[in-house]
């Protein structure tokens, strides 16, 4: 090894604290980038692979009942590659150990196993046997949540008749990667499952012989989805089709696509912050290094080392910690990515979740880090290169101090000398002080933004599960019921409050924009379901007109007062006009609300009901549930409390993990900035501080002067960090918002308190670490050292 290289390594080792801080910041940035980009890539790859391997359809049509020969007709539509028909029905289940009825979505599969669209990945057990109508393959999340295994029995009420089903296999399907009950946003694994059953068995149970109610298609390469949808809609309108739709409207796929998009947004946000801090740290550390090594630079030049030699030598101080950080960051990122993918595995049911990362992503992140390192080092390296050797021989001129704001007579007497030293030092190097404040505030901001998603989710839970919905259960009917069903339900023992809604599928249009949507007719917006926006504000449903969620109104381009076209897709299939009477910025999904009476008038019938919201007497719940299980008209029930619990459980782990990661990273950031600041301060002022000690100041007094500066900057950084954090959260909320949900911008007091405490503790710790160095200063040695 050449002597200059040896000098580099030994001095890096000597500066290990500061260099490790730089490496840690780089490692954080790279690990976020690598983990997030690998998760994004892995999710995309898993999705693609799953879809192609199990032939996930491109288009879906739901009808009431259509003759099977339409399959043949549809397959002749230009652009259609393959067609499958199925029978799908939601039925109630009697799950052992569960009082309330669960819902099974029965999906028909061929009696003899043949490749079909939306095929099953058989995870355990076997395929159904022909001639055994009781055999079913059940989705993995449901089986696992209910501790069921192939070989177990479960009873279902299919078309009013109770049937014993035999579970023969555990399966997964690309259609239900995100498995939720229709009408719900959150998975409730215990109470909703997909059951694959023989087509013949379902035909006979549902009286659907020679007919189907669900069709899936794949498109030929280059075919126009829009054209095929139009032809399908023309064909199936008379069979009660609500309109054909593509993958973009398939709930499960939309969740995954949204998730991938959100991961993509996070890739850009954190690494940029970390790289900025790395640039800053390298800049200050190297500037200080070059300043302390002026004489060495002069000697090297005097010996005949060229400017390039000297420049490269100092650049090495930036490149090596960056290289260490890159390697550590890549490894940490791969580890984190794998961990995150496991968490995703709980949310999303992939046949196989492959974790892998692209070389390009890692290379790009490493390249960006090195770019940042060079950028950060540039100022100092240039200084080293340009330093004329003769000037470098002379000691640096003493720093120029000028009377500042706090030196006015009126203030001077009130400020102790130690504070005056601190303030003057900061005033003299305002730019550096401002940058330090900014960097510490970025750590605060990451903490605030990290906890913001937590607060935001809390708000969502509060709004969705307490403010907006006050019912205990929602009873879903399998066909629209006449309003008289209300009497039957009201008469059930244990029902305390009951309320109904009607759900009508329509095509809404305004100008050239059209959207398939459902309108929910509510009896009231003051009862069990209320209209509550993301900021927890309530809205009263007007007696006429339609209230749209803000996102839906934006998609359609309508404003309050506009008249909108509404085509009912069922019943008399009327074409109507309706006034937009209000908008509401809800957290979840896209919705349209009307007063039930107004909707009935618009539809022009005597009214129909699709579901009931009930508040029930918990003491009588079990009896009520048993009754529901037996009612043929009940497709299933949704329990608010169970959904909340399931959501809490599901979200808890990922929230805890991401908060932990962000907190750790913010701590690393704050530590690195404060530690480096204090170390540099110590190196710049060791002589001065030792002189003060020699003059009789105590260790504590000298510590105050050294660390007071960092403390002051940290305190200044906290409010700045709050503001940046709020801005960052806003950006995050905007970026993460989709048609499926909008993050409400809420910050709890605890969020700010937590960020504040973390930063203060981390700063104090790094300060103490530097203070130990201060206490070990050899006073005589320091004073002998030539400046």
């Amino acid at each position, binding site marked *: 090894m050449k*002597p*200059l290289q040896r*000098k580099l390594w030994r*001095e890096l080792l000597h500066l290990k604290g500061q260099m490790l801080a730089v490496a840690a910041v780089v490692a954080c940035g790279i690990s976020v980038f690598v983990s997030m980009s690998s998760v994004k890539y892995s999710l995309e790859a898993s999705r693609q692979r799953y879809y192609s391997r199990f032939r996930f359809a491109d288009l879906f049509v739901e009808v009431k009942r259509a003759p099977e020969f339409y399959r043949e007709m549809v397959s002749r539509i230009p652009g259609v590659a393959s067609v499958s028909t199925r029978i799908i029905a939601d039925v109630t289940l009697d799950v052992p150990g569960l009082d309330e009825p669960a819902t099974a979505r029965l999906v028909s599969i061929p009696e003899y196993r043949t490749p079909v669209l939306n095929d099953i990945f058989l995870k355990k057990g076997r395929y159904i046997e022909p001639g055994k109508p009781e055999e079913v393959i059940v989705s993995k999340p449901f089986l696992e949540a209910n501790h069921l295994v192939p070989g177990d029995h479960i009873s279902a009420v299919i078309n009013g008749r109770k049937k014993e089903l035999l579970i023969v296999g555990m399966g997964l399907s690309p259609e239900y990667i995100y498995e939720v009950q229709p009408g719900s946003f959150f998975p409730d694994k215990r109470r909703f499952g997909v059951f694959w059953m023989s087509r013949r068995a379902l035909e006979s149970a549902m009286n659907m012989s020679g007919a189907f109610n669900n069709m899936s298609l794949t498109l030929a390469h280059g075919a126009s989805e829009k054209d095929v949808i139009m032809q399908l809609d023309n064909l199936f309108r008379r069979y009660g089709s609500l309109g054909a739709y593509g993958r973009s409207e398939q709930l499960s796929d939309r969740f995954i696509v949204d998730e991938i998009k959100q991961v993509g947004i996070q890739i850009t946000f954190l690494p940029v912050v970390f790289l900025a801090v790395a640039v800053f740290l390298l800049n200050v550390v190297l500037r200080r290094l070059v300043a302390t090594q002026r004489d*060495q630079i002069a000697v090297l030049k*005097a*010996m*005949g080392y060229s400017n390039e030699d000297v420049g490269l030598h100092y650049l090495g101080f930036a490149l090596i910690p960056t290289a260490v950080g890159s390697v550590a960051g890549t490894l940490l990122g791969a580890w984190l990515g794998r961990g995150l993918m496991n968490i995703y595995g709980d949310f999303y049911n992939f046949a196989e979740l492959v974790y892998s990362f692209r070389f390009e992503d890692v290379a790009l992140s490493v390249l960006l880090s090195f770019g940042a390192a060079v950028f950060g080092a540039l100022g100092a390296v240039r200084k080293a290169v340009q330093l004329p050797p003769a000037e470098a021989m002379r000691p640096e001129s003493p720093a120029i101090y000028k009377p500042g704001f706090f030196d006015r007579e009126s203030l001077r007497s009130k400020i102790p000398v130690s504070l005056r030293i601190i303030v003057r030092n900061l005033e003299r190097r305002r730019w550096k002080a401002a940058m330090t404040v900014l960097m510490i505030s970025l750590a605060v901001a990451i903490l605030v933004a990290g906890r913001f998603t937590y607060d935001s989710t809390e708000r969502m839970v509060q709004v969705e599960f307490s403010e907006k919905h006050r019912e205990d259960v929602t009873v879903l009917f399998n066909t629209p019921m006449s309003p008289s069903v209300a009497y039957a339900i009201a008469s059930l023992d244990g029902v305390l409050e009951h309320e109904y809604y009607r759900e009508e599928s329509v095509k809404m249009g305004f100008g050239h924009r059209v959207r398939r949507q459902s309108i929910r007719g509510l009896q009231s917006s003051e009862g069990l379901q209320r209209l509550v926006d993301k900021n927890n504000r309530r809205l009263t449903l007007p007696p006429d007109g339609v209230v749209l969620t803000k996102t839906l109104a934006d998609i359609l381009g309508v404003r309050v007062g506009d008249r909108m076209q509404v085509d009912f897709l069922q019943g008399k299939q009327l074409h109507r006009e309706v006034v937009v009477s209000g908008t509401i910025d809800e957290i979840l999904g896209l919705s349209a609300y009307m007063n039930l009476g107004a909707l009935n008038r618009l539809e022009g019938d005597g009214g129909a009901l699709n579901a009931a919201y009930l508040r029930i007497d918990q003491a009588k719940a079990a009896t009520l549930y048993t009754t529901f299980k037996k009612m043929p008209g009940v497709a299933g029930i949704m329990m608010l409390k169970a959904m909340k619990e399931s959501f809490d459980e599901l979200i808890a782990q990922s929230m805890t993990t991401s908060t932990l990661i962000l907190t750790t990273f913010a701590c690393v950031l704050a530590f690195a900035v404060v530690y480096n600041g204090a170390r540099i301060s110590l190196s710049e002022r060791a002589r001065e501080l030792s002189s003060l000690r020699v003059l009789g100041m105590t260790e504590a007094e000298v510590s105050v002067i050294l660390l007071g500066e960092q403390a002051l900057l940290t305190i200044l950084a906290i409010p700045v960090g709050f503001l940046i954090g709020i801005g960052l959260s806003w950006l995050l909320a905007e970026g993460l918002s989709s048609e499926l949900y909008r993050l409400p911008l809420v910050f709890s007091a605890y969020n700010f308190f937590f960020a504040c405490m973390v930063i203060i503790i981390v700063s104090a710790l790094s300060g103490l670490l530097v203070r130990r160095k201060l206490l070990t200063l050899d006073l005589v040695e320091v004073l002998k050292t030539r400046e």
Partner: protein
Amino acid sequence: MPPSPTITVDINQSSLNAAADEPVLNISELSKSYVMGEVQVDALKGVSVKFYAGELVVLLGASGSGKSTLINIIGGLDVPSSGKLFFHGREITAATEAELTAYRRRSIGFVFQFYNLISSLTALENVQLVTEIAEHPMSAKEALLLVGLGHRLDHFPAQLSGGEQQRVAIARAIAKRPELLLCDEPTGALDFQTGKLVLDVLEKVNRELGTTTLVITHNASIAGMADRVVRLRSGEIVEDRKNLERLSPSELVW
């Protein structure tokens, strides 16, 4: 860095011409002023002087007399405000940065008052810094043996006494076999005994290697060991005399 033929001189050949009339260094009307903080300093005011091969010259002067500035300009570390400097007839004052680097690398050895060793490198490695980039260097070990530090090769600067550190600095300076050895207050930071030891080494190098040596000092007693004494005051040469007899450093007293 490409070697610059315009200012390089084959060291062995020039050593043979020790007695020649042609000066190694020819300095004419050299002036230098610079700004330090908010003050303008006129460090040199029209200095003209010649130095010949193999000479051991002591540059005497009080602090601020301009001797360090002169030596820095001679060594190619600094550029004059006006005037010219010729090294073997080639104008150094007109050289580019790259040519100056090559000039320092091939022809000049520096010894500083505060040794300026790289604290993170051992004695041997400090010398290797030079042998690494020089063209016909002696080995680093040889150089350290020459200054009597054969037993301290692997010691870091912090483990060496001041005198030892300065001898490492001398070894570092002479390892490349420079034609010109420039010493800026080499005993300034040392006590009397140690200082004499260092001067012994300088005298030995001058005698055995024939290296033209300029020693800056404010200590007039050291002048006794020189062939020639040049005295500076306020940036001007006020005296330039030859010693009739050169004393050995052990005979010096201060």
